[in-house]
């Protein structure tokens, strides 16, 4: 366990009863969670190796309640950890003992659908998939699609600026949000952006998206919804080496094709998923690509024909072009099951660095070396079009020292990503997981500037204070 949490403030712990009583005056009784048993459900998030029991949990049901809670807690000097569904893989929503979790999961209504203007107004606790669900009858959808979309909330997506498999074409969260309602620490409610394009003045909306719950609590959002393409179908391509697959990706993009998804799996990832999902993936290849394109049937055929022609110039061994919805589902089945299948055979940690795609073969080789050095194995599954890697480092939590080895390998992989011109995190966020690596990517002046901006919103560092910035060397207001 190498990631440190700040020691809880004993003065706050001692005032727990008083603070709970104060909160009880502000929200409905069922919105306040005080018992240890019930608080347990909030002690961690998707980074389950780390846990801290919060002082209390509040689940307000309106912006006004969030505002009252924020005003009260900040007035009392109590730390606040904003929470959506708690699926963060970076530990972004993990509480601390002297903090109150303020969750938006009870605020999950669709407020307004406007197909003519292609927007939806929602409460922030709605799940990502529920937005697409609410507009699907008109063939619209909300584009960013994290694999966790059944569970994760738009609040969490905004917190992390989340991505998904279809981001190559449609962008990530920040490209698909037009406005938010946000409660500042002192309870003030602000509107950033709106239903129009480009917010007025400085781009505070852009600053807030991806700020990991450090600037305020988002309670509502206006999101862009898009008309779905007429259809979409993937091709599956198997290659004798990662170099061939990487060169094929570069050639596809170089020829002006921008597929809607371009996913990469290595040999171990293929084997693991095949053992679980039986999607019929080729077991005799070293690397596999799933390339999905969109349009009418004829447009799809033409694009996939071009993709296959390019692949043939790169020693492709297996070609499976989907001709039907059933074949598409079969191709996606393994990829979608990749994390789950890995979890069935082993403990793993999932890394999330991004690299310039030209560095792919080199980076894959070095990842292999790093992980081998620790005596572990790695399965690589990632978004190849944009260079966002997800190496899954396999380990056995019951073997003493293995988790530390996995974490060490993970850190070295992220350092490698930065070294070749990429970054520590492409979509999962910094949270606590990458907090102590921030100095690999940023100089002190870079970090100091970010912290000074953070200070404008939260001078006392009460909002999610253990995250993102290394605990030492903080620039205080």
């Amino acid at each position, binding site marked *: 366990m190498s990631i440190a949490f700040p020691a809880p403030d004993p003065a706050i712990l001692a005032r727990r009863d008083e603070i709970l009583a104060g909160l009880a005056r502000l929200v409905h009784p069922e919105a306040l969670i005080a018992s240890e048993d019930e608080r347990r459900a909030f002690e961690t998030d998707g980074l389950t190796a780390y846990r801290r029991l919060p002082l209390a949990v509040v689940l307000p049901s309106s912006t006004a309640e969030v505002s009252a809670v924020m005003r009260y807690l900040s007035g009392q000097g109590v730390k606040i950890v904003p929470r959506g569904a708690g699926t963060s893989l970076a530990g972004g929503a993990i509480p601390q003992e002297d903090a109150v979790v303020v969750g938006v999961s009870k605020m999950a209504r669709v407020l307004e659908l406007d*197909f*003519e*203007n*292609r927007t939806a107004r929602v409460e922030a606790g709605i799940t990502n998939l529920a937005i697409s669900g609410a507009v699907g009858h008109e063939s619209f959808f909300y584009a960013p699609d994290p694999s966790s979309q059944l569970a994760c909330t738009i609040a969490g997506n905004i917190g*992390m600026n989340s*991505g998904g498999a279809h981001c190559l074409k449609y962008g*990530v969260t*920040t*490209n698909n949000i037009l406005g938010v309602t946000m409660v500042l620490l002192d309870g003030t409610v*602000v509107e950033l952006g*709106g239903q*129009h*394009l*480009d917010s*007025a*003045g*400085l*781009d*505070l*909306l*852009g*600053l807030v998206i991806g*700020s990991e719950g*450090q600037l305020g609590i988002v309670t509502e959002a206006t999101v862009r919804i898009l*008309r*779905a*393409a007429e259809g979409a179908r993937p091709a599956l391509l198997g290659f004798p080496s990662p170099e061939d697959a990487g060169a094929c990706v570069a050639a596809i*993009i*170089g020829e*002006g*094709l*921008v597929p809607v998804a371009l996913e990469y799996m290595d040999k171990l990832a293929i084997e693991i998923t095949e053992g679980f999902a039986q999607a019929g993936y080729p077991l005799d290849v070293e690397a596999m690509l799933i390339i999905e394109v969109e*349009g*009418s049937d*004829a*447009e799809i055929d*033409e694009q996939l024909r071009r993709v296959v022609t390019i692949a043939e110039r790169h020693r492709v061994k297996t070609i499976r072009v989907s001709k039907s919805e059933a074949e598409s589902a079969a191709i996606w089945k393994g990829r979608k099951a990749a994390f789950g299948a890995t979890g069935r055979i082993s403990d793993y940690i999932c890394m999330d660095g991004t690299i*310039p*795609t*030209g560095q792919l073969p080199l980076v894959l080789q070095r990842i292999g070396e790093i992980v081998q050095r620790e005596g572990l194995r790695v399965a690589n599954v990632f978004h190849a079009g*944009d*260079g*966002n890697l997800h190496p899954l480092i396999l380990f056995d939590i019951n073997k003493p020292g293995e988790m530390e080895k996995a974490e060490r390998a993970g850190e070295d992989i992220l350092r490698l990503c930065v070294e070749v*011109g*990429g*970054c*520590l*995190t*492409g*979509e999962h*966020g910094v949270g606590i997981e990458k907090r102590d690596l*921030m100095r690999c*990517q*940023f100089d002190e*002046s870079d970090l100091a*500037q*970010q912290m000074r*901006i953070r200070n*404008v919103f939260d001078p006392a560092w009460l909002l999610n204070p253990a995250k*993102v910035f290394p605990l030492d060397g903080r620039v205080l207001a």
Partner: protein
Amino acid sequence: MTTITPRDEQEACAAVAEAAAGRVPLALAGGGTKAAIGRPAQTERTLSAAALSGVTLYEPAELVIGARAGTPLAEVEQTLASRGQQLTFEPIDYRPLLGSAGEPTIGGVAAANLSGPRRIQAGAARDSLIGVRFVNGRGETVKNGGRVMKNVTGLDLVKLLGGSWGTLGFLTEVVFKVLPKPERATTLVLRGLDEAAAAAAMSAALGSPYEVTGAAYLPAGLGGGASQTMIRLEGFAYSVDYRGGELRRLFRRNDLDIVEGEANTALWRGVRDVAPFAAGISDEAVWRISTVPTKGHHFTELVARDVSCRWFYDWGGGLVWLACAAEGDAGAAIIRAALAQTGGHATLVRAPAEVRAAVDVFQPLTEPLRRLTAGIKGSLDPVGIFSRGRMYAGI
């Protein structure tokens, strides 16, 4: 008026540090083509990025280009075109509208978040901007973002610097995501629709699965005879052919022309650069209004009750370019009262300096947002030397 033209980032840091120590206000500039946008500021020194020039990174297969801030936009666009690529957000060239001279720079594109008609489908400049380096008001270099498309490491200052009009930092280098240039472009021009019908037609086109990349409306008289509702498709030839056919079917009851090739390029350049109100043709004040697309024509109806004005729409009706007499407050009070009903914001992009000094050029802020804006300005530029007052009085 002196102009300092640092040759590298270090010189820029030194120049800023010196100005900060002496509390000397600096106007930040690239090519200076947009100097007349914003509230007039009293600065005796300009810090220019003109000598920070050159493409620093171009990887066509990674869809990314980086350049020093003072690199002419034209140079960036030519570099991209040589590999069949482009900046996807179609940045407006403000020179015709403002009657300004000089070379727009890539840093200026970022600092002003300049987008054109394709913004409706491909996002704004800020959506393509993935990395910046800048000098803050302490004379320190700061980097944020980088050269990869997916990056959520730390606070997103790239977005904050995009569209900050030189008030937060002196950009030294910017990195943009790029996309292939489309093989073919075609525009359906529907003739004679009134504003409500045009708004509905543009919504229908933008809500279709055909990925319309431009939707604009020129009222009768502005673009010649009857009104023109313009709907653009771009992409591979086979795709544009097919989608054009589908859209023609959708609008089969309309009087409709197809525009392609050079004429099509010129048509959209005119929309992008606000040709109907270009300097030399008109000396009116010009407002740029972003509102809810289907409410664009309600907005103009409200304004036209009290102000004599002309206008046209881009972004499916959501971007209104409005011209009126450059007298008094140039319609500011009425325009902003109308926006209170429809939502959105208005910027006075062209008016004589006296008018820009007297009215809020940028949309006035609510009190909490003003506080945050001032706080952010202070956190980047503690002494307040960068283009002070250009966006908001006192900030």
